[in-house]
């Protein structure tokens, strides 16, 4: 079951992929390359997974420091790890 389907949070979670945004980013970064239609969605999937891992790691850091709120340092430490992981 897709996680998105179980979303029932207070705020509305948009499940639509910002395909135009992603394409614009890719074009800005690599103008000489083209992005296919389906790969656009997979890029979005990749972003989702990245953000998911980042959030998990940040939460672990925050809980590790006995803090009920995610702070900047938690996110920073988590980003270091996850970006390294996502390097590919």
């Amino acid at each position: 079951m897709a996680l998105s389907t179980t979303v029932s949070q207070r705020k509305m979670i948009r499940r639509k992929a910002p395909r135009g945004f992603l394409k614009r980013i890719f074009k800005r970064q690599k103008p000489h390359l083209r992005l296919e239609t389906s790969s656009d969605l997979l890029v979005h999937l990749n972003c989702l997974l990245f953000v998911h891992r980042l959030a998990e790691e940040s939460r672990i850091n925050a809980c590790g420091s006995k803090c009920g709120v995610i702070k900047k340092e938690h996110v920073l430490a988590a980003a270091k790890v996850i970006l390294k992981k996502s390097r590919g």
Partner: protein
Amino acid sequence: MAYNFSPDSEPTTRTLLRQVLDTAVPRTPRRARSTRSGAQRDLLETPSSRRQRSQTKMTARRRSHTATSVDRLARVQASGHLEEQTPRTLLKNIILTAPESSIVMPEAVVKLVPSPQVVQPSRRKSSRGSLELQLPELEPPTTLAPGLLAPGRRKQRLRLSEFQQGMDWGHLSQEPRENADASSLTSSLNLTFAMPLQPQSVKRPGLARRPPTRRVVDVGTFLQDLRDTSLTVAPPGESHRTPVATVPMDTVLEDTQPFSQPLAGHSPSVHHSLPCPSPSGAKEVEGAASRRTRSSGHGLQNSYSGPGKPAQLLARKMEEVEAIAMGLPNTSSVSGEDGIEPLQNGVGEEAEESMEESMSVREVEKAAEEQGSARAEEPEGHTEVAAAAGSLGAIEAKEPEGSSEDEDTSASPELPPSTPEFLRTRRLQFPEPAPPPSTAVLPSELPKHLSARIPPRPRIPGSRPRQDPYKAGLNHYAKLFSFYAKMPMEKKAEEMVEKCLDKYFQHLCNDLEVFAAHAGRKTVRPEDLELLLRRQGLVTDQVSLHVLVERHLPLEYRQLLIPCAFSGNSVFPSQ
């Protein structure tokens, strides 16, 4: 005797007790029967036994102050003893000790007594016997002469039984089944009566439940008033008039309602109203006759035969009214009082009358429309009716509105079961907000606009176009981050997340470029993405890409990504 009590809003029991007390001064308990029976009958009629109790209590206390000869002492003693007991015992003592004027002969009293007794023969007989035993135990201080004790007991029994009947009369409505199971119940009742009377009061919640019967009636009348007021509220001008108007005037003013807006001012509408009822009177009679003869629903259908939309409006409104009327009986039935049934019938009649009035309103509307005064303004009239009737009318009157109206219709059927007040208020509100948001803004669209507007970071005017949509997209993922985290976050943390995302995108593009170049392509294809995911460790031998797609992407995207076989030996997306 001086009336020590201040007149209350409910004169029934109080006045009765007053009479009892007043007449009770210099009399023997024997004659107390007559007034007591009358008092009990009145007690029977009163819906709330609590008031009885309270009043009896107050009367008991006040009786202690009344100046009388012998009975005073008795009452004082009784009251002194009464205070220790429950109101029921108080009242009983009062009834026992308070002599009254024998308006009716004892024989008549005897006749009167059996009449209510017949209603509950099974119960009463058993209860009487038990009560007999109770009385001497519970009321030792009674100063009845010993010679009178024997007949007094019988009379006590009668009086108490009458009183019990009075109590049970209201309670009977709640528990009609008890009569059916006479044997078991009587035995149980015997047991209960064997106990002190206090548990009876506890066991007989009917005494406490009587107020609801009143509410039913009130609601019924209140419905009518609401309808009248709602019908009058729709037109802006006459809202203040209609509530003041009397009942016959209400019907006239209701008729004027649909004309008020189509017509310029109140006076022409009033003038129209006057002649209108006369021609519509026949229609009212016909409608009423049709309605009366058949069930309300059928009657409505008959009434619908004539006009189109207004009839439908009427139909639905009357359905709603019926629903309300039925809802009231349902609510009342919940309490389970048979005494409510006649009230329900009254409510139903009232509802029918209100429906008739509404029907007359519609008919008058048609008459007026036929007259041609409201031809050009039929939609307005319809809108008026809609505002008065509800969202249903609004839907019909404003068909071009579309989905928003449909939402109202879907919501309106759910409303009738609710209190009529909400009906009026909501229905009145629905037509108003319905037209403005005709586009039916979806809630999902709102956050998009909001998020698009949220990031106002124009650090450099030239690069602003890059910032805003860029920030908008990043905000999308930042929100996802906060959602996944399930914990409160600081603003700085969110900014940090955005920076990380920025870096991540850069890495992503670089990797994709490398992969595409490795494959000798200049276009990034899904295979490159899959390779990226695999290298990131998200896709493993156990977890395939399709699994991730199914997990995290909505259905529409999944259909685009995962090839699925369709009929005709076709696969989409084609490989």
